[in-house]
């Protein structure tokens, strides 16, 4: 099983599964919230490199973590987003609150 969460300093990356639905989103949610609460996480990155399916449950999980991070003064980005996932993120309006990158963001201070 691949590592789902990697933490480097105050940045946590969540490597999303191939299919992000209600079932897999629930599993990620519990562990993500525990890590966000217990570690000093300032930035959260959702890594879509290996993801080819997402439904509104995935969107709900992402928006939920976004609200949590914003409440704590942190930020959230989506990285390595392909064409199909960009379509879902756009349709759902998530792109309005979360920056979406095709590759890895070049923003200094994010790592």
């Amino acid at each position, binding site marked *: 099983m691949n590592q789902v969460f990697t933490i480097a300093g105050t940045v946590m990356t969540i490597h999303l599964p191939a*299919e992000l*639905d*209600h*079932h897999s*989103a*629930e599993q990620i*949610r519990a562990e993500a919230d525990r890590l966000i609460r217990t570690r000093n996480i300032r930035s959260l990155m959702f890594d879509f490199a290996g993801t080819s*399916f*997402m*439904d*509104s*449950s995935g*969107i*709900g*999980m992402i*928006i*939920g973590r976004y609200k949590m991070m914003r409440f704590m003064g942190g930020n959230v980005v989506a990285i390595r987003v392909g*064409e*199909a996932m960009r*379509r*879902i993120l756009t*349709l*759902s309006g998530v792109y309005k609150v979360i920056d979406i990158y095709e590759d890895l963001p070049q923003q200094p201070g994010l790592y």
Partner: protein
Amino acid sequence: MMHQNEMKLEFDSRSCNESFARVTVAAFMTQLDPTLEEVADVKTAVSEAVTNAIIHGYEGRVEKVTIFCRLEGQELYVEVRDYGKGIADVPRAMEPLYTTKEECDRAGMGFSFMEAFMDSLEVESAPERGTCVKMRKRISRETDGGSDDECRDGTNARCGEAIGNRQERL
């Protein structure tokens, strides 16, 4: 006479069956020669309907969800049914961003996604009787300069192009 084919699927309302359900419908519809994008659309819509049945219809109880599919000509018809709680106010439930379970990270986008990804959506529901979601989608048979045929042979690069082009048109 138009070509017709039907199938029925019944499974437990466990979240691990969500992927089984959408992949099964996707496999059944391949007979219509859909594009990758059309398959993705149907998978998302089925996933939304099945997730609703599990979370809202049965609220975590393990009972049965059924899916009925019919292929008629180039049209896919999908019915997702549960015998659970039902919806008192269907138009309200279908409003974008409306959800009764915000604390569970529900985005309130399920019906909007079904509407966006399918050609038509109908919801029949009665409190304590259950909910039936009926969806239709026409599967195009046009070939964009042959690129769709290439897709079926597994040349993904060309597929990406075809999807890109289609998206620009949206």
